[in-house]
């Protein structure tokens, strides 16, 4: 065996600094039969860290349904792939950049977007849309404004320059995110089904090529940081964050697509968290091959970089590729044309070892499978959350009048218009944005149409906190509903599971509950999980975030001319609610915003009703008998109707059944519901069809005028509502600049 240098000595402190538990280190020593080199310690710390190995979550992720008629590639690759017909596939994934964004919001969010775009074009897909899901602390917290401004500018800064439209997202505020904001970014690309590229290497003795920008000492230990709980010192520690270069990424995109087209690529993997280490090990492990790297050839930005630093650097805009034999020159010429680095830094072997050489010394020689796809996994102890009490309408105060409560809701940080944010994103570039942000789901035309993709990201963290299982179900159901509401057939999801410290049984219980709920809903709604990401340890000083399993949904609109929007279109049309309204106020936005209470069980999600009601609504859209559709979520019926009125600049006169108290009827959050508007004269037929399908349908009133009229309440000006809804966020943000 070769000599592996070892300074400094491996001490228990050094092991701990690398985020390895003593037993994990022990396991590693036994595996290799000797003490590791420092470079090896760095490599294993990166590979076995939560972020790369999914050691706490893997056993549970395996329970998710991942198969379906449309699924070409499920979890396990850089992104999921679903068939959308005509020889085309949608390629998508979501990923978190939570901790880096808290430390440096602009660059953290920007590089998050960069990373997920790379995951998508690594597979041969041209990115056609980006979305994001953001959670910030309480809006009164002194850091919140700064974080919102920075994150939004960072997402826009990267996506706008790269040239992908950012078409959707979700934004929420809660004090539980004060010390741990969430930045989840999703990217969607299009590829031909027969031109998809995978990470697994194949063929022995093939050249491994380094592509893209040069390597610097960026974010060394970034991956470890992303998985370590924050303590008091975190802000002082100021770990190196990476700086994104969207310009380089755009060039990398074009160059990669060009060499793929030229047939140069056998397999390809982006360098994300823990850069060269993760990408090289994954390529080899997935392809059952060994990898030998010679770091002397790695293009470096800084002088004197050690093997350890090169292996752990998180410099952005880089790729690793196994080249087709005989294609070296052609591939290199393409990269040079785009002004990017290209270097052969190793080759595949048949030894199943991961060997790293630098300046003639073997810095690492490790078994590749055990590092990669056979990394440790834990079945961590968990306790289920205590069920919460079911609240009756009478348990909830109705002291605030209905119009005043509506005002509070539409001016709350969670429900106000997010225009201030999405106007900073170029949502029109590429010229395919059929439905821009602000609707239930974004709709993006596929090539020349008439097909389009519908895209959304959703989760209701307060439900997940109240009941992880129901909350997990609800997140999926809401994504499914949002796709349905624009007339799309929901195809598949990507998820981003954001939780606290899994070593605490109650947090692990939240995780398990949510994953079970997600699984149940995906199963029932035929909505498989094809990719995703897990972000754990989102805690500061033992205080965890709300459990936040973000769901990114992708659906197919067969004919974009029939895609549905939520704004009222014409006066005198009948408004109905699809689905049963009982007035569920537990864990509702009303309870939180109007009553300042966060308690009660969340609304149960009846997946059979979800499916039935959604399929019914979709059939109405397909048959062109409705003119507006909106799903009912946060804030209940009246908020949904107000949003339809504001979008259409048209009022409505409404009625309600006597059996349910006003606050519960208008603001309850019963699930599986949609507000629909019947095209003129179609009402009776819709009623008949609902009866035949066993779908609950209730007439609420009709559109018209410039006010919302409610029985027994003062009338509400639509323009006034719109004004208050639109100005809350700009005013809030304006106070800082």
């Amino acid at each position, binding site marked *: 065996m070769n000599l592996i240098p070892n300074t400094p000595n491996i001490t228990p402190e050094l092991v701990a600094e690398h985020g390895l538990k003593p037993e994990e280190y022990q396991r590693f020593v036994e595996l290799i039969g000797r003490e590791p080199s420092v470079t090896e310690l760095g490599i294993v710390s990166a590979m076995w860290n939560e972020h790369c190995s999914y050691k706490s979550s893997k056993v549970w992720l395996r329970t998710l349904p991942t198969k379906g008629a449309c699924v070409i590639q499920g979890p396990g690759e850089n992104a999921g792939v679903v068939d959308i017909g005509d020889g085309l596939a949608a390629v998508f994934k979501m990923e978190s950049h939570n901790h880096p964004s808290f*430390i*440096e919001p*602009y*660059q953290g969010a920007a590089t998050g977007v960069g990373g997920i775009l790379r995951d998508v074009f690594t597979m041969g897909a041209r990115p056609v849309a980006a979305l994001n899901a953001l959670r910030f602390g309480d809006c009164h917290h002194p850091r919140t404004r700064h974080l919102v401004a920075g994150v939004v500018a960072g997402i826009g800064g990267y996506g706008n320059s790269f040239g992908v439209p950012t078409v959707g997202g979700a934004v929420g505020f809660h004090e539980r995110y004060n010390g741990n904001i969430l930045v989840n970014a999703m990217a969607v690309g299009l590829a031909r089904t027969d031109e998809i590229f995978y990470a697994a290497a194949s063929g022995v003795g093939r050249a491994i090529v380094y592509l893209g*920008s040069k390597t*610097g*000492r*960026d974010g060394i230990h970034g991956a470890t940081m992303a998985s370590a709980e924050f303590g008091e010192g975190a802000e002082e520690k*100021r770990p*190196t*964050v*990476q*700086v994104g*270069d969207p*310009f*380089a990424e755009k060039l990398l995109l074009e160059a990669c697509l060009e060499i793929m087209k030229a047939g140069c690529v056998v397999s390809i993997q982006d360098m994300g968290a823990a850069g060269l280490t993760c990408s090289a090990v994954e390529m080899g492990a997935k392809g059952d091959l060994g990898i030998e790297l010679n770091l002397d050839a790695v293009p470096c*930005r*800084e002088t004197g970089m050690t093997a350890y630093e090169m292996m752990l650097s998180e*410099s*952005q805009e880089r790729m690793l590729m196994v080249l087709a034999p005989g294609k070296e020159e052609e591939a290199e010429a393409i990269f040079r044309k785009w*002004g990017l680095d290209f270097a052969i830094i190793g080759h595949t072997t048949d030894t199943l070892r991961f060997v790293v050489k630098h300046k003639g010394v073997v810095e690492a020689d490790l078994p590749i499978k055990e590092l990669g796809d056979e990394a440790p996994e834990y079945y961590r102890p968990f306790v289920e959350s205590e069920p919460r009490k079911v609240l009756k309408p009478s348990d909830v105060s109705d002291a605030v009048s209905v119009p005043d409560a509506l005002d509070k809701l539409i001016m709350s940080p969670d429900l106000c218009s997010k225009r201030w944010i999405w106007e900073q994103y170029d949502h029109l570039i590429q010229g395919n944005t059929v439905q821009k942000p602000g609707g239930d789901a974004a709709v993006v035309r596929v090539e020349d149409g008439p097909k389009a993709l519908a895209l959304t990201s959703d989760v209701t963290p307060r439900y997940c906190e109240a009941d992880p299982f129901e909350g997990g179900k609800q997140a999926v159901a809401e994504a499914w509903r949002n796709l349905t509401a624009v007339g799309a057939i929901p195809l598949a999801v990507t998820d981003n599971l954001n939780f606290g410290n899994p070593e605490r049984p109650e947090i692990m219980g939240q995780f398990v509950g949510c994953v079970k709920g997600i699984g149940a809903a995906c199963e029932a709604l035929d909505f498989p999980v094809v990719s995703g990401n897990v972000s754990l340890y989102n805690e500061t000083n033992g205080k965890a975030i709300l459990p936040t399993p973000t769901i990114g949904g992708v659906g197919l609109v067969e004919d974009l001319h029939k895609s549905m929007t939520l704004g009222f279109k014409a006066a005198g049309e009948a408004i109905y609610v699809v689905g049963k309204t009982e007035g569920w106020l537990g864990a509702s936005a009303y309870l939180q915003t109007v009553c300042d209470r966060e308690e009660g069980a969340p609304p149960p999600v009846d997946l059979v009703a979800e499916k039935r009601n959604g399929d019914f609504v979709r059939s109405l859209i397909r048959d062109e008998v409705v003119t507006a559709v909106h799903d009912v979520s946060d804030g209940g019926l009246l908020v949904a109707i107000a949003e339809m009125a504001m979008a259409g600049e048209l009022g409505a006169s409404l009625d309600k059944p006597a059996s349910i108290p006003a606050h519960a009827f208008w603001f309850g959050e019963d699930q599986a519901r949609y507000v629909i508007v019947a095209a003129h004269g179609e009402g009776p037929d819709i009623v008949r069809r609902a009866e035949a399908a066993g779908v609950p349908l209730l007439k609420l009133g009709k559109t018209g005028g410039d006010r919302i009229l409610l029985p027994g309440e003062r009338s509400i000006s639509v323009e006034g509502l719109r004004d208050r809804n639109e100005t809350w966020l700009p005013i809030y943000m304006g106070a800082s600049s």
Partner: protein
Amino acid sequence: MKARVIVTLKSAVLDPQGKAIEGALRSLGVSGVQSVRQGKVFDVELSGNDKASAETVLKDACDKLLANTVIETYRVEFAE
């Protein structure tokens, strides 16, 4: 009184702008430039005439706003 604050990227931090400028200068035929790193300068007008207190104010301004100390360093200079 007048002061100048110069904010530059820490030396290990990637400077995509500098890189692009280097390339552009090269292709414009400007020779002899080996590397460029771009930073910001703030020309500040302060009330009062006490250098020491001005320095305190500016350091405070840098830490709070002008510099992102995660990736940048700063320097305060006074006009002679």
